[in-house]
């Protein structure tokens, strides 16, 4: 397909996010003649290099100004579709990250005990030989003994593919501890998801409902969007226990009690259904509301969809009064009414849904107390949603053609948009809660319509999308997996189970413990590997995940597991390879450290195969490229991975003669094809660089990206921009671009047959059934319609001993653990407080600045209190990952991050409380395996004076060898001035 990028607006036309008349240069911006000698036009840089930020995963475009070989200034790229010129607090502090004294310098080999942080520097050749020898042996014997887990990276399409070539099913990225509930619930329901895979229609929404978001991966787009909503006078409603950040600027803050959003949303659904305020037309057209569900309790197909002999879904035609092909365009689908078809009693999905949520147990009065929200408020919000969706509905004068070829002159808008993230996700009931939110959106007819929630390509995809996870056989020596390790199961038969029904994967993903673990369970790999449950591994290969600190639950226990030894004295996890760029806590636990570059020193690929930079109006992808040369003996991890792959002889990474197929990652980005014509980058493909989406590799592709500001972006035609699930032009474009296999409409799954299949298995049907002990849990949690249940920790402990919910929020100016090494960011925050509701604190005799023990069933952490009003009274919270281990990140003795900052993770158990049988599961959602960070319940105990430091404390980590001294004072920027003054003097 030939899709030229849209013309970049001329330099004088105002463009970018901040281009309101009040944000533009002065009309006459010539320097006035003040005569004060101020140099108003200094040269800023010798060169501006445009690349992609990586101070977080938001993928903003940046202009890196370089002066005398030093980064002078990093600004937002105005033309970039993600940030449109703005830059967040982290992005502007990139200079201090790039020049951090904590940057690793050379490969390290452990010399002391593991965990003591004693290393010697080795050459790359030695490091790669050690790693390759080990990996070669594992691959030739039992490839699953390599567990390859990657954290915050943006190269999962490479790392996953590499694992698949290696032949280990034991691969995942960070999604399992992050937000797989959101991804899975979305993908199984609407074929797209919140996270950064969709976005509110910021320009057209009139009503915006935000659930459980402090910052999110779409950092800048959400901020730009909220700014736009506020400027346009749309109503912003936030549902969040904490009133900070986005929630502070909301018109209405609903300080909900953690873990109860599902109930709140179902009460809204109750109200809307009760009043008949749902978009029937939309439901009939775009969802499975009309599909007939078999009602035959006890039967093996009870609750499955009714299908004809050809396997086509059936619905009842209310005009023809007979069962018809549910997906045909010409039918008049009945949404209610029990019918008997071919002797089977059936009801349409919508009727099941209505029966469920009209139940008085979902009435606002029934849920109000639990949610901590007045019933009147819930009723009012429901009424406001209906008013905005239906009374403020509008028609956008853009003609479009639907999947059946019918032309529509306008696009109907329903200006209600929603967004949700980890406040929903990080609970053990998050999958269903997220599905409930999608249900609410769909009932109001607001998914991918003007003013609603919009998909970002490559989404939507069929719900659930393919492919299924590979590796059912556990991997065979010297053999690639048949596909990618991570995928989407459609029923029990797709699970990765061994002969005895136990897990195949080390993290137990796709086992009965977490059947729809679409992103794996990164948070369980260390615990399981140390226990040898389900089996022992040989090598744990970690990349960009600080697992010995903030990305683990039970952090102290995790440190022990990483160093635990067998009776024979060997480590339980025999070998640990880790790639980090900085001296993080986890470096100390590696046997071999592969030092990465900073984000300004390497190629990266922000690919449509992974997490691209698309916008709802069109797909995009981007690169990073070495805008600075490393001054240390470090190598980009992806290049190292490709090198290792070639040394090990992975099929996709060597040529027929066994020589390396790719020179480095840059070479791979350009020449690798996942399927013919589809590679990591979609822009400027084809031998002559004129094709986009699909096309032969273009050897000059990276040059084209660099010329175009480091990214490629394609704008859809206006008629393709909404109703993507059923928009013919869009669907055809999506097929051409390789997003979806067929140009068929995507049907929203209000009722999830996939879940019902698991429930049937639990009831004793089908070839693959859970072990008896698991049946009840599966039966309970695989309801095909969204349900709500008390989060596990609370259900087990009740409220008596641990009455308070304890949660974390991301500070907008810090990225997890990376921020604290940043000389600028750590000045803003270097100690986190525990924020406690003023009234609650009074009741506990706690005052401002007191130190308290935060005690959970698992452990206790000590921190300092700050009293606030804007928080749910049953909730305490803190900024995430500010507390640091002493010695890490090159912070000096006495650094507040180590003295007074605390890490809540020490109080979070990686396991649920034992059930009646004493069985403990991972502390996760039972459907997806999503880590339930926010289920934590605590009590607070005031400390006596003399306890003014954080607990627990650990032995100080030593500094890796040959690191440069840490400066006492930083005069960064002085050189630019000297240089300028020199220039001036010379003039």
């Amino acid at each position, binding site marked *: 397909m030939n899709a030229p990028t849209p013309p970049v607006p001329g330099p004088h036309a105002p463009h970018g996010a901040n281009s309101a008349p009040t944000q533009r240069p002065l009309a006459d911006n010539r320097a006035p003649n003040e005569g004060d000698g101020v140099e108003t036009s200094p040269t800023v840089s010798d060169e501006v290099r445009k690349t992609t930020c990586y101070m977080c995963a938001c993928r903003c475009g940046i202009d890196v100004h370089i002066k005398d070989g030093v980064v002078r200034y990093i600004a937002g790229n105005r033309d970039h579709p993600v940030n449109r010129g703005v830059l967040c607090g982290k992005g502007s502090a990139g200079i201090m990250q790039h020049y951090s004294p904590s940057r690793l310098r050379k490969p390290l080999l452990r010399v002391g005990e593991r965990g003591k942080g004693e290393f010697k520097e080795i050459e790359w050749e030695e490091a790669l030989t050690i790693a390759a020898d080990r990996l070669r042996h594992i691959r030739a014997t039992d490839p699953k003994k390599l567990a390859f887990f990657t954290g915050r990276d943006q190269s999962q399409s490479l790392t996953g593919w590499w694992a698949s070539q290696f032949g280990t099913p034991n691969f995942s990225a960070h999604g399992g501890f992050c937000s797989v509930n959101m991804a899975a619930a979305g993908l199984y329901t609407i074929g797209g998801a919140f996270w950064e895979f969709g976005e509110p229609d910021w320009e057209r929404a009139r009503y915006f409902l935000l659930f459980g978001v402090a910052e999110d991966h779409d950092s800048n787009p959400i901020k730009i969007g909220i700014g736009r909503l506020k400027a346009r006078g749309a109503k912003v409603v936030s549902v969040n226990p904490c009133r900070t950040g986005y929630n502070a600027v909301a018109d209405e803050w609903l300080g909900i009690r953690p873990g109860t959003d599902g109930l709140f949303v179902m009460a809204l659904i109750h109200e809307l259904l009760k009043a008949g305020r749902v978009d029937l037309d939309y439901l009939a057209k775009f969802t499975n509301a009309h599909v007939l569900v078999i009602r035959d309790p006890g039967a093996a197909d009870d609750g499955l969809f009714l299908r004809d002999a050809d396997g086509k879904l059936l619905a009842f035609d209310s005009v023809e009064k007979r069962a018809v092909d549910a997906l045909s365009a010409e039918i008049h689908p009945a949404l209610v009414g029990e019918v008997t078809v071919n002797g089977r009693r059936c009801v349409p999905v919508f009727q099941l849904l209505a029966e469920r949520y009209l139940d008085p147990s979902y009435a606002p009065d029934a849920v109000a107390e639990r949610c901590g929200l007045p019933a009147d408020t819930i009723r009012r919000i429901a009424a406001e949603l209906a008013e905005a969706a239906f009374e403020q509905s509008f028609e956008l004068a853009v003609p479009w053609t639907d999947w059946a070829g019918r032309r529509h002159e306008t696009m109907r808008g329903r200006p209600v948009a929603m967004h949700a993230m980890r406040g929903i996700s990080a609970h053990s009931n998050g999958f269903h809660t997220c599905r409930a939110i999608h249900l609410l959106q769909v009932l109001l007819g607001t998914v991918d319509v003007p003013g609603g929630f919009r998909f970002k390509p490559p989404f939507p995809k069929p719900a659930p999308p393919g492919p299924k996870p590979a590796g059912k056989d556990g991997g065979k020596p010297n053999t690639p997996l048949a596909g990618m390790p991570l995928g989407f199961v459609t029923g029990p038969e797709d699970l990765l189970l061994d002969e005895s029904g136990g897990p195949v994967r080390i993290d137990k993903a796709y086992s009965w413990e977490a059947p729809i673990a679409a992103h794996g369970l990164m948070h369980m790999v260390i615990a399981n590997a140390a226990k040898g449950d389900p089996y022992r591994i040989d090598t744990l290969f970690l990349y960009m995940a600080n697992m010995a600190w903030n990305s683990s639950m039970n952090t102290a226990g995790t440190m022990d597991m990483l160093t635990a030894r067998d009776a024979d004295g060997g480590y339980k996890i025999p070998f640990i390879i880790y790639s980090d760029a900085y001296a993080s806590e986890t470096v100390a636990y590696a046997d071999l450290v592969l030092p990465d570059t900073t984000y300004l020193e390497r190629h990266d690929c922000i690919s449509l195969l992974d997490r691209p930079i698309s916008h709802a109006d069109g797909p995009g992808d981007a690169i990073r490229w070495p805008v600075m040369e490393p001054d240390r003996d470090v190598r980009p991890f992806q290049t190292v991975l490709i090198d290792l792959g070639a040394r090990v002889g992975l099929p996709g990474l060597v040529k027929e003669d066994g020589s390396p197929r790719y020179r480095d990652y840059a070479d791979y980005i350009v020449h690798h094809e996942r399927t013919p014509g589809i590679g990591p980058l979609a822009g400027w493909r084809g031998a002559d660089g004129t094709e986009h989406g699909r096309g032969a590799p273009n050897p000059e592709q990276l040059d084209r990206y660099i010329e175009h500001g480091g990214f490629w972006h394609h704008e859809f035609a206006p008629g393709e921009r909404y109703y993507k699930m059923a928009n013919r032009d869009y669907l055809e474009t999506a097929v051409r671009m390789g997003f979806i296999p067929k140009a068929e409409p995507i049907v929203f799954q209000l009722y999830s047959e996939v879940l019902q299949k698991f429930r049937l298995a639990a009831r004793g049907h089908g070839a693959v059934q859970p072990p008896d002990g698991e049946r009840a849990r599966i039966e309970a949690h695989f309801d095909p319609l969204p349900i709500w249940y008390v989060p596990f920790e609370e259900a087990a402990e009740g409220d008596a001993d641990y009455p308070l919910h304890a949660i974390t929020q991301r500070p907008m100016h810090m990225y997890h653990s990376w921020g604290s090494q940043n000389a600028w960011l750590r*000045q*803003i*925050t270097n*100690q986190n407080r525990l924020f406690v509701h003023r009234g609650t604190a009074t009741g506990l005799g706690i005052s401002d600045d007191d130190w308290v023990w935060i005690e959970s069933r698992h452990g206790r952490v000590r921190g300092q209190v700050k009293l606030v*009003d804007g928080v749910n009274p049953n909730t305490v919270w803190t900024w995430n990952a500010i507390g640091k281990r002493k010695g890490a990140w090159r912070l000096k003795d006495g650094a*507040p991050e180590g003295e007074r900052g605390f890490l809540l993770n020490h109080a979070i158990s990686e396991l649920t409380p034992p059930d009646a049988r004493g069985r403990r599961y991972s502390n996760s959602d039972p459907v997806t395996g999503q880590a339930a960070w926010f289920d934590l319940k605590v009590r607070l105990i005031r400390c006596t004076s003399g306890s003014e430091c954080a607990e627990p404390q650990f032995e100080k980590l030593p500094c890796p060898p040959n690191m440069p001294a840490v400066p006492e004072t930083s005069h960064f920027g002085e050189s630019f001035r000297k240089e300028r003054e020199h220039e001036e003097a010379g003039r």
Partner: protein
Amino acid sequence: MHPAFSVIAFTVCSGAGFGLLALVSAGAALGLIPADRLLGFVAMGLGLALACGGLLSSTAHLGRPERAWRAFSQWRSSWLSREGVAAVATILAAVALAAGWVFLGRTDGAFAAAGLATAVLSVATVSTTAMIYASLKPIAAWHSPLTLPAYLLFSVMTGAGLLTALLSVFGLDVRALAAVAAVLALAGWVLKRAVWHRNADHPGVSTLNSATGLKGGMVRSLEWPHTEENYLLKEMGYRVARKHALKLRRIAQALAFALPLVLFALAAVVGGVAGTVAAVVAAVVQLAGMLVERWLFFAEAKHTVTLYYGR
């Protein structure tokens, strides 16, 4: 406000120095003080030393002391600049008088004119110092009609104290002067208490509401922009515990006013060696008391910027 020792020492010493210079010069010019050369040397020397020492010590807290000369340039608008100009003029006049007195044993004629000029300029200098503080609207405790009288009174009070002690040491009859010093100590005490009283009632017109533009109700600081103390807090966010301040106020009152009052009164009555000892002790104690008073002057003064930090 941060009680920087250099600034405290500067204001106390220069206040006392200019007070002494004013009294000595006027006294000499009017022939109330004998033109004894040694006396002239000691009295003018002490006055000049205190005034110059104070000025020098004030440069110690400059970031770029080598450029201190630039501070004379803005006398049209800046009280600090005016203070510099006035201080130098005073010192020049005082040096002229001292030259006549010490080298020629003369304090009449042109030297008397220089003496009168010194006295007037001293008052002007102390006034400019006072106005530096009195003009600062962000600091309610200083931006007060009492700041100028207080500086002037404390200056003449400490100057008179020193002069009493000095003349007494030179064996002159200082009973009348001691009585004046006692009265000045009493007046200073009354004024200082009035200042404290007024400041308690005038915490400043600005509030966190007006500082943030958020109207009505109550505004509380939730989070600072930075975890550690920064320049603003180190310089202007100094806090002294109430209990501590009360104790120091008592000490200041005892040393600066009460004890000198009693001792000068004693000197006014008894005379002789006992009177001399009393006067000397009184003067020294008074200076020490003024250091405490001045420490509190800074430490207790609240700058509007602290509103932003919820202090």
